[in-house]
């Protein structure tokens, strides 16, 4: 269901192949995390120095290739409409047209789109984190017949692309009269297997003795989940929250199929329609809109980068 988004379904696929031995969140402190043996001769060795320079050169080329499109997007958003296609290409705007960022609010419904997207992202994230971590406790800590088979079913569906069952799902939701409402997207995204998998992986790294002790103190399983597991799993909850939020914000296919009414459009749908309805092709304005749609995600990503990377790496590896 949440296979709607590329990211999440990637993760789910990961989950499928990685569902063997659970580990905690992968610490990806990078090579810098482990200083290792390093002698002073290594530093002064000229061959090593050349290698280092080559390394930086390669990385810089990579970084330029990766970031140029972003730079171009932001710079174009500050140009006048005609200047975007100036030949030969001019990177910096002749005059910085900050007005684009004012006009976009008046010339499009971007406020509505942002409101819808924000609403969806918050509700979906809340439900996914809640039901995911709750179900994960059942899978990680309770022992009962059929549990492992059920979990296998959860991960099995991860190899099934959403595109293959989007039609019956659409008919089902249409019969419930929720297509063309925001509820459709909430239902679609909120009960993903990925959240269950990620949280289960993490719970299994928490020592069983903690819950045992709490059980002896008379705490119910629900209280153990709420009072012990939840507080201890904050890093994993942060990962799941960030990943779900970003996925929902960026989702394009789900809204495309379900949200026909322009009042319900998300920012992705809105901007896409803006592309195709741009009579005077004011691309500078469009780039302003795109920049606005990317910035919240960029900020969230930069703030929570550690959790992003650890969450993703956890989903990807068994050991």
């Amino acid at each position, binding site marked *: 269901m949440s296979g709607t988004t*590329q990211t999440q*379904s*990637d993760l789910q*696929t990961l989950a499928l*192949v990685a569902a063997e031995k659970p580990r905690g969140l992968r610490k*990806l402190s*990078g*090579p*810098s995390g482990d200083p290792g043996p*390093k002698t002073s001769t290594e530093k002064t060795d000229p061959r090593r120095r050349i290698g280092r320079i080559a*390394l*930086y050169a390669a*990385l810089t080329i990579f*970084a330029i290739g*990766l970031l140029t*499109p*972003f730079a171009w*997007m932001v710079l174009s958003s500050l140009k006048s409409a005609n200047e975007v*296609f100036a*030949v*030969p*290409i001019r990177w910096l705007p002749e005059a910085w047209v900050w007005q684009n960022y004012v006009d976009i609010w008046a010339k499009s419904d971007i406020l509505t789109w942002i409101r819808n997207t924000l609403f969806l992202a918050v509700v979906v994230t809340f439900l996914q984190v809640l*039901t995911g971590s*709750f*179900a994960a*406790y*059942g899978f990680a800590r*309770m*022992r*009962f017949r059929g*549990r492992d088979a059920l979990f296998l079913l959860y991960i099995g569906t991860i190899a099934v*692309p959403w*595109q*293959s*069952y989007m*039609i*019956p799902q659409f008919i*089902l939701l249409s019969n419930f009269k929720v297509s063309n409402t925001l509820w459709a997207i909430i*239902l*679609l995204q909120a*009960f993903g297997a990925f959240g269950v998998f990620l949280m289960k992986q993490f719970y299994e790294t928490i020592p069983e003795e903690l819950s045992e002790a709490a059980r002896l103190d008379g705490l119910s*399983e629900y209280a153990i*989940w709420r009072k012990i597991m939840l507080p201890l799993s904050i890093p994993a909850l942060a990962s799941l929250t960030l990943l779900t939020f970003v996925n929902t914000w960026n989702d*394009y*296919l789900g809204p495309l*199929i379900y949200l026909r009414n322009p009042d319900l459009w998300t920012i992705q749908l809105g901007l*896409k329609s803006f*592309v195709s309805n741009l009579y005077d092709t004011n*691309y500078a304005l*469009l780039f302003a809109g*795109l920049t606005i749609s990317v910035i919240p*995600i960029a900020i969230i*990503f*930069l703030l929570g980068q550690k959790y*992003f990377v650890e969450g*993703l*790496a956890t989903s*990807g*590896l*068994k050991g």
Partner: protein
Amino acid sequence: MAITAADAPTRVVTPKPAPPRRRSRLKMRNTLIGWSFILPNFLGFGLLTLVPIVVLFYMSFTNWNIFGTANWVGLANFQRLMGDGSFRVSVLNTLYYSALHIPLTIAVSLGLALLLNNKIRGVAFFRTAAFFPYITSIVAIAVVWNLLFSPEFGPINEFLRFIGIANPPGWLTSPDWAMIAVVIVGTWRDMGYYMILFLAGLQTVPRELHEAARVDGAGIWQRFVNVTLPCLRPTMFFVTVMLTINSFKIFDLILVMTEGGPGQSTLVLSQFIYRKGFMENQFGYASAAAVALFFMCIVVTVLQFLWNKKRSI
């Protein structure tokens, strides 16, 4: 060793087995509590994922249309698919995309991971930069790249002309180059993600092995082939499985960049399903194509699992 074994019985307090009846009641209670944890998520998961998958197979044998009337037509949909030129094109294009995208993404993201696995200043910055495309919305990616690829005014062709290529490709306007442009963007978007996986994998490679190989006089390339790659095999397996499934189902990138064009040159299987289902309302027929996609993914995943198992013995 012997001491531990002798110690064990005294240290481990085995709980006394409960009387049979109490035990079965306890089991029952555990089952109920267990299910109560899973149920909230399972309701959504079952209804919105499991049920549609089952219904999909039924639909593929019917002529289900927009009015919801469905007659059993047996294998008619599948026979029709066999003779459908667009379907064949879409399958071939999907395979073409996969054949380019999978090796390219592995090479680039592994290369990047190897570069970033060095102890150098600024590693965090490069890692962030590499990851950024992956969290950017597909619409922004498509608009920006479509203009970068623009044959007349685009910076890419301008650069190519600058370095002396007189007739740079038409990219998205050319049937021969459109898919290649999509592959480039797809790789650009995905490589940060796979790089993270490879980086995590690289950290499981024992340092001592590298040191030993170095002492034995192995060069960088020999160490890569004989030490790094074998140690990365589990990661490589995950990455390949994921990349394959993700390539087979490629859809959103195509939809926002080319919509399958020019002509049918970038029409892929997922889009064929979408067109037949949501634009032409032939739900039954579209479901048959979706069953094809389903089996493509499952069969390839199972094959990769078997191959991996065989190699790890």
